[in-house]
């Protein structure tokens, strides 16, 4: 797709501002009714999906040029690409796809050399060291030191566990991929890892607008897994899950893809993982954007728009609608509810209309204050439930919550869901 292909999305936007709020049916309070971190933090209308579409249309129409605006890059990059706008819009405008349009705008900016300087060190490091963490490639496999697990580049395994950049390099979080692998192994799963040869999934670069880098990493990973003979990819990273489940199939990937919450929840249900201890804690669960509303499987579609009854635009054949309906919401909740002694309480904004953690879309890398503000908002919402801890299933979310709590001096605990599973064994 090219930016011109989204002109219709821009020109048909009704500027209603639904993109700024959670679906109105779910509004339970004044405090937690807002849905878009970008407009809430940055205030001007341009920092909403509708505003961005208008700015892009103005550019396309030649009403101003890149050189005329000092705000342009901020407008398009100060957004986590969390996709809440896409959900709220589609409730009433069934065929609107603002998230795809916003992504395409970023691709276009990169093509035109409109690069955000803050992203460049990260992208340069990615190109050199194959990770988004500003670290050396040689350190990638350290998280698994001492784990007795197959290296699928050396021996075959049915399942490859993909740790991802965050879990591979964030030492404080190493316990999570290590727990995942141990749980899988102990349940009899034939699992291996790529170790130091694992590569970035590419999706964070993709969301920053670097489509070429994404394609390169996607093709490399597909080839590496094919060579290794694996059939299934399991990851604890929501970003990686989205890449493998939704994007890689567009490049021909046929692997089965599971997030650990899906895979391990199944093992719990099958009795292959049994709990023996109470975990007396009240927790609330944060739905990662890329596991929840954006975690829907890819459905191939080729077709075109046509008009019926004069001016009603439909797609032929029927186009799959990604509106969060088929995201991964139940497995993590089932897991938490199965842990003895644990009580799950829900926040006001959950599932397809969850508030973002703030880490995505290149925001954590370029706008750390905005990123932490977004996370702090979520922590405030978690505190309002009376929970002692916020639980999530994504390393990027967990890191941002930990940093926000440390920065603000709050007392909320943060767990990956696997940490609580581990405690109950």
């Amino acid at each position, binding site marked *: 797709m090219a930016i011109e292909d989204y002109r219709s999305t821009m020109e048909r936007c009704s*500027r209603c501002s639904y993109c700024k709020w959670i679906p109105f049916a779910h509004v339970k309070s004044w405090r937690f009714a807002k849905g878009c971190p970008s407009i809430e933090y940055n205030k001007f209308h341009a920092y909403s999906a509708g505003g961005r579409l208008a700015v892009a249309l103005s550019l396309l129409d030649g009403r101003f040029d890149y050189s005329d605006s000092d705000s342009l890059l901020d407008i398009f990059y100060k957004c986590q690409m969390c996709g809440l706008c896409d959900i709220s819009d*589609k409730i009433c405008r069934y065929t609107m796809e603002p998230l795809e349009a916003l992504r395409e705008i970023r691709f276009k900016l990169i093509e035109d050399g409109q690069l955000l300087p803050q992203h460049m060190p990260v992208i340069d490091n990615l190109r050199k060291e194959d990770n988004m963490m500003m670290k050396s490639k040689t350190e990638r496999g350290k998280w698994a030191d001492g784990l007795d697990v197959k290296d699928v580049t050396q021996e075959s395994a049915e399942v490859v566990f993909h740790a991802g950049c965050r879990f591979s390099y964030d030492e404080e979080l190493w316990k999570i991929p290590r727990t995942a692998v141990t749980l899988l192994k102990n349940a009899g799963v034939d699992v291996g890892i790529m170790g130091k040869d694992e590569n970035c999934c590419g999706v964070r670069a993709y969301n920053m607008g670097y489509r070429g880098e994404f394609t390169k990493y996607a093709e490399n990973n597909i080839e590496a897994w094919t060579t290794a003979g694996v059939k299934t990819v399991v990851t604890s990273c929501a970003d990686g899950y989205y890449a493998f489940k939704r994007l890689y199939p567009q490049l021909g990937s046929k692997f089965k893809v599971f997030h650990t919450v899906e895979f391990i929840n199944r093992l719990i249900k099958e009795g292959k993982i049994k709990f023996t201890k109470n975990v007396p804690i009240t927790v609330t669960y944060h739905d990662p954007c890329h596991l929840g509303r954006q975690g829907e499987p890819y459905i191939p579609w080729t077709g075109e728009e046509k008009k019926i*009854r004069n001016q009603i635009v439909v797609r032929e054949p029927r186009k799959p609608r990604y509106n969060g309906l088929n995201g991964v919401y139940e497995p993590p909740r089932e897991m938490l509810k199965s842990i003895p002694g644990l009580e799950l309480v829900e926040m006001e904004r959950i599932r397809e209309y969850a508030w973002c953690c703030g880490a995505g879309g290149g925001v954590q890398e370029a706008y750390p204050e905005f990123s932490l503000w977004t996370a702090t908002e979520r922590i405030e919402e978690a505190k309002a439930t009376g929970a002692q801890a916020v639980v999530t299933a994504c390393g990027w979310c967990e890191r941002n919550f930990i940093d926000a709590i440390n920065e603000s001096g709050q007392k909320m605990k943060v767990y990956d869901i696997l940490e609580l599973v581990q405690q109950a064994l």
Partner: protein
Amino acid sequence: MALLKEAYQALEDVVGPDNISEDPAILDSYAYQWLAELINPDGGHFMTRPEAVALPGCTEEVQGIVKVCNKYKIKCKAFGTGWGAWAAPYDKDVVLLDLRRMDRILEIDVDNMYAVVEPYVIGATLQAEAMKVGLNTHMIGAGASAAIIAGVAAFSGAGADSISMGHGSENGLAMEWVLPNGDILQVGSLGSGCGWFCGEGPGPSAKGLVRGALGACGGMGVITKCAVKLYPWPGPATMPIEGKVPAYNSPLPENLRAHTLAFPTWQAFADACYKIYDSGIGYIAHRQFNKWGEALQGAVLKIVSDPTKQLDDLEEMLQRPEIQKLTEEMRHSFQIVLAGMTHRDIDYQEKVMRQILAETGGWEIEALADPEMEKWVLLYLIKLPFKNLNFAMATYEGSFAHSGTPDFEISYIEASRALKRKYIGKGVLADDGGEAMMAAIARQGGGGVLALEQFFFYDPQDINSVLGAQAYLAEAGKVAGEMKLGPGLSGQLLGSKPKDKLQQMLSSVAQPSVFHYQRKIKEAFNPNDIGDGSYVYLEEPSKK
């Protein structure tokens, strides 16, 4: 003309550098608007680009901006959520005030049943907080996303619940008003230090000046705080939400029921309206789903209430016999929500409703009485969270928007339908059959007045459709004028651009003196003419 550097600096001194911008990218995000393509002769999507946008955070900052605008003779225009062409500059050289930083619910007075809100408080948030204490707020027809104050002061203000909660203009109580000259006027009881409970006094009664005949559209100063009436809510503190995205629904207790009532003729429909007014039943009464048009309403209704369906299914759905039956049944229908304060109350209202059906030859539509469907209808009408399903098929706008006695209102449906069918025949409007009359069954508290609005649908990306819609709207305005329907709501005003046509239309209403008085009000309150042209008035005859 760009703002003078010193004028911009003066504005920046008021709100701070982070809260003002003259960057063209920021400004064009405000210039783009729904319906702009129907106003611009070339079908363009942008209204006039403002010279700057400021984000005041309090009354003092609003006042400061207005004073700067008076000093430098700059026009200014404020908005709450900023939805629609009315929120953009109508004139050149306008500073926009985006009031989104003023978003607090300042008070909910449970005993006296009112709330005090700032301009960016919307229907959804006030309603959620009011329900927690057993109260509810009037939600204007634009739905949950619309600002409460906009419904009181800037626009028409009718809604689905007007039968029990009244019109926006009825619901405004005391207000804090930054006048176009920069003074602050405390309207109603606030003006005598008696709090927020009354809009008419003790203290200056100025509600009519605030909104004028049609709503001030942000062109007559800024309401920075406003008290609005709240009404009893006999439901749960938080409405439970079930169902799958996008077709959520709400299971509610037995004292809240939704019905779709159908009638054999328009006359029977009108007769039922009178009987509902007389009997006093009804919490919400609206002709909601007919907005998708007489030929499509059944299919679109089924699509939007089923999470597995989407617009791409429309052609197939239209072929289904059960959909065709539903569509035919819905021809002269409306929805009513009954809310019982007690079990006896709901039983009584149900009984009265059945009696009205018996007396008018009406019936309840079975497909919509299904419990799952009823839960969806209840959510739809009580929270108006899906109001933009107005856009489910295509972009829409209203025409022939008018209110009056039911007998009068039904008298122009056929003429309106015929005119619309002419443009459907040209292929420029979506073929919805012709009649797509949205209706507030009562436009004011207690009933007595029916409000109709003929929706039409077009594709804003298709210049032929846009120009055709412009032509339709202009002709609809002319026909409405000839029928003495008056300027009505937005459609006619949009169709009356440019200004000479607007003058012609305002002159043709039954009581044009109203718009002469609006000019005099403007001259008195806005001596430096800093208000945007969206505040309409008749020019002095000598200046025509």
